């Protein structure tokens, strides 16, 4: 039996209108991998922010290595041996690897000594990294390595990892797990946050399940089925999307030789992309974040224009058209970033309905806007897609992620697209909303529309797509039938383990 490292008892944190954590308690032992399992919005992030000193609990207490533990700020938590690998927002693109790591340390050595230590740690744990590269140029997997090394350099007792595998290929996940096992062998405890059940069953010793801020159960993942865990996490069983029979029709969208230079400094340019989608077909495009997904969506939506013949809709070239002209012809899109890209946060839902539907839904006449019609359209989206909101005059930012996503997808679906392109349609969305969005896409395809679904969620892609391919550094892999693809094959299509050999980690 191992020593208890961290005890959490009765932690509660409320925000206006929502209780993020309600009386949560559990324990983590030394050398243990403890999973924190829950849907989006279940309160996982708030909980770890309290452990890391970023958020102060309203009530409850913690002990760490037997002593009372209430870090007022992250540097105190770090000094005591708590380290955290963030999902977002924690790297500085314009700075190099060593500078980034230095910023996460209390008493960093000089840059030269630090570089030497980075090399040392990266070799020990099989995480190759050049200390002097600019972070903005790194792949998602490499960026995560920066964070992990930043944590390891401080000899942590507890390592918190927030959704670490969402940016990795299956091969990279395997390497990460080997690194983590090496750490636990040295007595480091790991608090592992995820909603991917199979991963947790492979890696974790114990799991605490959160739902709506409450601790709803604990289990030993190796001895519990994924289905049982899922039901505890979601609270009730729900149906997997039904996949109606579909007849594939003529080619709706034909992309050939599409190359686009990324407008962003640290973006990924698209290189010579070819694919076609038929009516009634769903093409799934996988890949690790930052491999050209945003650029591909922008090139298809018309935000980035290209050579006219690179994109053909029903045989006629549209590559040089802007978003409005493409919409009029039936090529609709829904970008990944809901707030600020797909929708304007401070504008009402009526105004956000106007945003893409003005021309196609005839909400304007010679440039003059018909707000009454836009309101009716917004109400239709709210009703048909079960968007939970007091009404269309509410601001987009007041909606929860899932509800806003339903609104955004609904806005495009109700415009009767010939071709619909979606990027990360269920990212950060609770399971029920995700299921209804997937169902909407399947129904739309059954009605004869061609759908391109760009996503990092492989389970989602396997569930809905007819054919699968992956983006890797701006290039598209071969396209293969989704049915019967193995995880290994998918991983290789996504680029395998970027920049490293799997065998390296075994050494």
């Amino acid at each position, binding site marked *: 039996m191992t020593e208890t490292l961290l005890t959490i008892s009765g932690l509660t944190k409320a925000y206006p209108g929502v209780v993020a954590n309600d009386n949560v308690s559990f324990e983590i032992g030394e050398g243990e991998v403890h999973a924190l399992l829950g849907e989006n919005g279940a309160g996982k992030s708030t909980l770890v922010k309290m452990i890391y000193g970023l958020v102060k609990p309203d009530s409850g207490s913690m002990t760490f290595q037997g002593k009372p533990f209430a870090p007022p700020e992250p540097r105190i938590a770090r000094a005591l041996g708590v380290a955290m690998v963030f999902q977002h927002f924690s790297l500085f693109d314009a700075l190099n690897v060593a500078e980034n790591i230095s910023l996460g340390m209390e008493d960093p050595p000089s840059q030269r000594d630090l570089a030497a230590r980075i090399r040392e740690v990266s070799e020990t744990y099989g995480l190759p990294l050049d200390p002097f590269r600019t972070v903005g140029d790194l792949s998602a997997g490499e960026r995560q390595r920066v964070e992990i090394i930043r944590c390891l350099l401080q000899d942590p007792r507890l390592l918190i990892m927030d959704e670490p595998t969402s940016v990795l290929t299956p091969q990279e996940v395997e390497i990460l797990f080997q690194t983590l096992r090496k750490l636990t062998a040295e007595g480091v405890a790991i608090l592992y946050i995820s909603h991917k059940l199979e991963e947790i069953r492979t890696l974790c010793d114990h799991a605490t399940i959160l739902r709506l801020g409450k601790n709803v159960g604990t289990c030993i993942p190796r001895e519990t089925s994924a289905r049982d865990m899922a039901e505890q996490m979601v609270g009730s069983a729900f149906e997997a999307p039904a996949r109606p029979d579909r007849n594939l029709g003529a080619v709706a969208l034909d992309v050939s030789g599409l190359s686009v230079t990324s407008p962003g400094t640290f973006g990924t340019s698209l290189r010579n992309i070819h694919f076609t989608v038929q009516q009634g077909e769903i093409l799934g495009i996988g890949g690790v974040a930052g491999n050209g997904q945003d650029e591909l969506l922008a090139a298809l939506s018309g935000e980035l224009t290209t050579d006219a013949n690179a994109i053909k809709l029903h045989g006629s070239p549209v590559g040089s058209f802007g*978003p409005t002209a493409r919409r009029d012809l039936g090529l609709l899109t829904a970008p990944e970033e809901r707030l600020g890209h797909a929708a*304007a946060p401070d504008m009402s839902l009526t105004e956000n309905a106007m*945003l*893409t539907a003005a021309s196609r839904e005839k909400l304007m006449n010679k*440039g*003059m806007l018909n707000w009454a019609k836009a309101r009716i359209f917004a109400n239709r989206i709210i009703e048909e897609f079960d968007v939970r909101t007091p009404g269309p005059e509410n601001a987009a930012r*007041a909606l929860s992620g899932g509800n806003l996503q339903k609104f955004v997808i609904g806005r495009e679906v109700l415009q009767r697209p010939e071709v619909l392109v979606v990027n990360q349609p269920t990212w950060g969305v609770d399971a029920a909303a995700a299921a209804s969005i997937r169902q909407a896409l399947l129904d739309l395809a059954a009605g004869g529309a061609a759908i391109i679904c760009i996503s990092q969620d492989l389970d989602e892609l396997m569930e809905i797509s007819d054919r699968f391919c992956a983006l890797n550094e701006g290039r598209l892999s071969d396209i293969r039938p989704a049915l019967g693809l193995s995880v290994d094959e998918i991983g290789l299509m996504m680029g395998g383990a970027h920049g490293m050999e799997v065998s390296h980690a075994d050494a």
Partner: protein
Amino acid sequence: MLTLEKRPQPSKFWTYMTPLVAVIVTMIAGGMLFAALGKNPFTAIGTIFWEPLFGEFSFYYRPQLLVKGGPLILIAIGLSLGFRAGIWNIGAEGQYIIGAICGAAVGLAFYPAESWIIFPLMVIAGALGGLLWAMIPALLKVRFGTNEILVSLMLVYVAEQLLASMSLGLLKNPEGFGFPGSRNFQQYASGHNAELITGSGMHWGVVAAFIAVIFAYILLNRHILGFHIRLTGQAPRAARFAGVNPKLLVVFCLGASGALAGLAGLFEVSGPSGQISIDFNSGYGFTAIIVAFLGRLHPVGILLAGLLMALTYIGGEIAQSNLGLPAAAIQVFQGMLLFFLLAIDMLTNYRIKLTNRRVA
């Protein structure tokens, strides 16, 4: 400890209350400033806000409200379009000067011929002058990505030098006994922007300002272009996604604000001011920035804010002659107004909460 908490959506109440509260707070702070300068704060505030409207000589001052408010409103309406879209034209003063020079030059070219067509031609020339001057930052931004704030502002200083050069050279009155400055339009009927109703202060510039208010209102609330302007300011990426061409928008917003500032300059030089002279410009282009913000970038708000700002100008002049209040004090007063407005504006999007600092 006080903390800010973001509202789920902007507060309607505070959207309308902010300017009012800002005016009241500015009056209080301004009163303290005037007291520090050794003036009775109540007399001073009263002189500025009461005297021009209801005082003994209000029959003279009231028309001035329109004369001074007209150009402020006209310029601020133009600026507000760009400000809404995140396009910062702060060189309206320069566009105002160039509009005046171009319009005056066309008028003077016809002198002494008399015809009804002359004044409309001057108006067109004034608008075009301002438009072209604003096209410099617009095209540089579109073509090279140059910062429009810096370029439009640098062009103010260039325009001021051009103004000096014009009033000493090309446009100098040949019968002016060597004094700098052009012929006076008040003595040239075809080119004179005269009062439309005697004693009202109403001239063509004021009419133009009212028309601009109505047009801007329709544009922003009912037209796709206005929707795109608002969208670009609030969420630039969403605007691209909606199909907005940001470059065209830069050209439109800078062009419109330049043309309106140019018009304001033309109406001023051919009317109240009368002639091109070295110190023809009086800072309307900068004060209009305050007017635009005070009016919350809303056309009707700008109309009211323009009149209020005109009031402080006129009241300030009265306070200057009656109480010996320095002109600079009024400038500080106007600056404070913008300060308080920006500070209080946070209540639209945030609410203040009292929280306990240490729990845990």
